[in-house]
């Protein structure tokens, strides 16, 4: 449900895609009645080349080289990026994260969210158009499809043709290639959770664990289904981000826009017709902007939630304008303010520095810097102290009271460390029952039962009163004074 009057995104005010009397590829059924569910028509986007297409290819390559490649990178005798769920240790290059470090995951997610806000406020759905896995894998799958079955027209023809040996062969080749990419993707994905080389060896020896096999096949199926079959439907019907992007746009956000004032009235014409002649606008109504669109919309209807901001229509239209000898940019990145007030490039750029983007950027920088600083000064030692709850206290020797504690020492460093344990907070309090220094293996945990003893001489003036006392356990690495933890606990003196 949406309030038409307050709809935040401009929709086609004058010319609607449904009423268009001109010959365009039918996107919606033309019948007078419509169901609440419709049979989906497969979209065959036409190949597109140009500035933005080049950027997308570059980003697809960059993200996928990182994704497929990083899993194979060794680091200090282990995999550089490995999320060992069973051992609850998360290796990221030189750092080992423990579940206790979950705050850094929160920081990462906050940084990701703020980046999303910032980039969306600046230039719309950049994430959707260039970096989202749905876009990236669809792009890869469409590239495969294009190499095997040909471009849009050839594919449309093949779809309409009856089954023949050639069609069967092409379809088999396409799905085979898709499945191969999907399986490799699933294998790589699981390779971030199980060492990828061991996983490969196990797969070759047919000794994959049931869960590993399941997740490889699951991610393969998800990749194949999403990038091969679902495609734009994921963006249109499943992705929540497509729906809430509207609140992150404002009048000065760069969005892909058809310059209606310049383009209308649209119409076909000979190449020799100069702009403005015959009472026509610059839009030659060739329909190529619709043909290249991966979500099958007509950008000339205005900003729509289906638009993933891939800018394929800009590249396509610019080429047509070049051929016609018209100025580029009939479809371009521009802002609502710029269209209304006829602002130039410089003015648009100037308006990118507005409170919304500046605040997003400031918060983003602050959170990133705080996270990085915290990470750089992270203490590789963690200590938990749990006082034995079963007994309050006991008399170790006449005049000496002791309490029992479990002390868990976590060495998150990838080196063996030795620690001393000391206590403070009561006169004469000392740690007994543990051989010092305590050695803890690399990236592991050691649980110690130890006792704190304090003299409780009733005759003495500074004897501690009966009841609980705050004490502090100090665990310190013997070779590095900066690796130290002070953990508070309670020491009980009985009545």
């Amino acid at each position, binding site marked *: *449900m*949406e*309030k*038409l*009057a307050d709809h935040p995104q401009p929709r086609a005010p004058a010319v*609607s895609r*449904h*009423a268009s009397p001109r010959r365009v590829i039918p996107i919606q*059924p033309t*019948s*007078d*009645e*419509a*169901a*609440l*569910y*419709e*049979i*989906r028509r497969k979209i065959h986007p036409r190949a597109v080349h140009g500035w933005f297409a080049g950027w997308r290819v570059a980003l697809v390559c960059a993200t996928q080289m990182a994704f497929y490649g990083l899993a194979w990178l060794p680091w200090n005798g282990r995999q550089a990026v490995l999320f060992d769920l069973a051992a609850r240790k998360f290796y990221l290059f030189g750092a080992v994260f423990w579940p206790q470090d979950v705050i850094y995951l929160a920081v990462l997610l906050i940084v990701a969210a703020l980046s999303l806000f910032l980039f969306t406020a600046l230039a719309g759905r950049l994430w959707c158009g260039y970096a989202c896995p749905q876009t990236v894998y669809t792009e890869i799958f469409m590239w495969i499809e294009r190499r095997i079955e040909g471009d849009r027209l050839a594919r449309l023809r093949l779809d309409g043709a009856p089954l023949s040996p050639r069609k069967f062969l092409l379809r088999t080749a396409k799905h085979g290639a898709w499945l191969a990419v999907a399986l490799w993707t699933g294998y790589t994905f699981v390779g971030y959770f199980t060492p990828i080389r061991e996983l490969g060896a196990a797969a070759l020896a047919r000794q994959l664990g049931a869960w590993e096999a399941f997740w490889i096949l699951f991610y393969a199926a998800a990749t194949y289904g999403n990038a091969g079959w679902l495609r734009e*439907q994921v963006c249109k*019907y499943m992705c929540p981000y497509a729906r809430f992007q509207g609140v992150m746009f404002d009048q000065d956000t760069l969005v892909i826009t058809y310059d209606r004032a310049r383009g209308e009235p649209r119409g076909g014409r000979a190449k020799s017709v100069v702009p403005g002649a015959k009472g026509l606008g610059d839009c030659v109504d060739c329909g190529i902007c619709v043909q290249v669109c991966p979500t099958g919309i007509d950008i000339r209807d205005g900003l729509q939630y289906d638009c993933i901001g891939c800018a394929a229509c800009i590249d396509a239209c610019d080429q047509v304008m070049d051929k016609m000898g018209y100025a580029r940019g009939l479809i371009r990145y521009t802002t609502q303010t710029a269209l209304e007030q006829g602002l130039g490039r410089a003015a648009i750029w100037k308006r990118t520095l507005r409170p919304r983007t500046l605040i997003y950027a400031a918060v983003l920088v602050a959170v990133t810097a705080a996270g990085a600083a915290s990470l750089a000064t992270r203490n590789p030692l963690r200590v938990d102290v749990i006082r*034995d*709850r*079963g*007994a*309050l206290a*006991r*008399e170790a020797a006449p005049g000496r009271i*002791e309490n*029992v*504690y*479990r002390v868990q020492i976590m060495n998150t460093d990838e080196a063996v460390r030795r620690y001393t344990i000391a206590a403070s907070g009561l006169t004469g309090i000392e740690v007994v*029952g543990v051989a010092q220094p305590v050695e803890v293996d690399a990236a592991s945990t050691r*649980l110690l*039962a*130890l*006792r704190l003893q304090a003299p409780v001489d009733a005759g003495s003036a500074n004897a501690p009163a009966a009841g609980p006392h705050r004490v502090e356990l100090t665990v310190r690495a013997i070779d590095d004074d900066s690796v130290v933890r002070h953990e508070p606990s309670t020491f009980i003196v009985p009545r």
Partner: protein
Amino acid sequence: MSDFTSDGWSFYIAIVTLVSIIACGALLYALGRVRVTRTEGGEPVETTGHVWDGDLVEYNNPLPRWWMWLFYATIVFALAYLVLYPGLGKAPGALGWTSTGAYSTEVRDFDAKTASLYAHFLDQDTKAVAADPGARAIGERLFLNYCAQCHGSDAGGSKGFPNLADADWLYGGDPERIRESIANGRNGIMPAFGSFLGADGVRNVAAYVRSLSGLPADDVRAQVGKRVFAENCAACHGADAKGNPALGAPNLTDQTWLYGSTEAVIAETISRGRGEASVVSRMPAHKDRLDDGKIKLLAAYVWALLNVK
């Protein structure tokens, strides 16, 4: 099921569940057949025609048809689930799955996985197990789980719970006796002598008991108490008061005090007894809760506290 609910609730829940599922299916079917106007007089109609609050209208953004089939699939899934698993009131489900059954299966699977490990230890002498650092590490974890609540994380005990790390044993400290204590439990009873000895008699015996381990005590009372002790206490604690491991009677001549060494506490022990009226001083049997392998590892760990350095 609780005693307070009648079978009627089971039927009530089953009926609510089934009616809801059928209603979902009917709604889906009805919506699948709805047709809305697309164009009217050549003008496009983008909304479903529903109006709320005067101006609130609904766009028709049709979902793909396969989405509707997914909805139907969820209904099929729900029905299949309700047939196979317990979900419809008290109906047990065709697979006979229960949460307690799943728990026991998991425990059994885990025990099967560790069985070979424990079998290896069961074949060995307890002292040999105690010499194995890996076995001691397992034993320590078992101890922290099952024993530390009473005996302390360091096995040092507390009032009423014996220290397991020292050389003083109520029931004997060789591995087999320790294993027995864990498996079968111990039930130490010190009878109450208060009404028999009288308050004065109790104080005399307490003074004597304190003098046994060199603690300051009233000499006169201790002399009287010695005679009373020989008549009433020596049967269990021995004429020399060194205790009797067969009965769990503690040695009274050492510095180990299970309940405390002050005269007041000793007098309380004598007059009111220990363990008769309360569960304190009762070590519960663990043979029904822990298997032989775990008990052996625990015995080895406890024995090693004093004997393996």
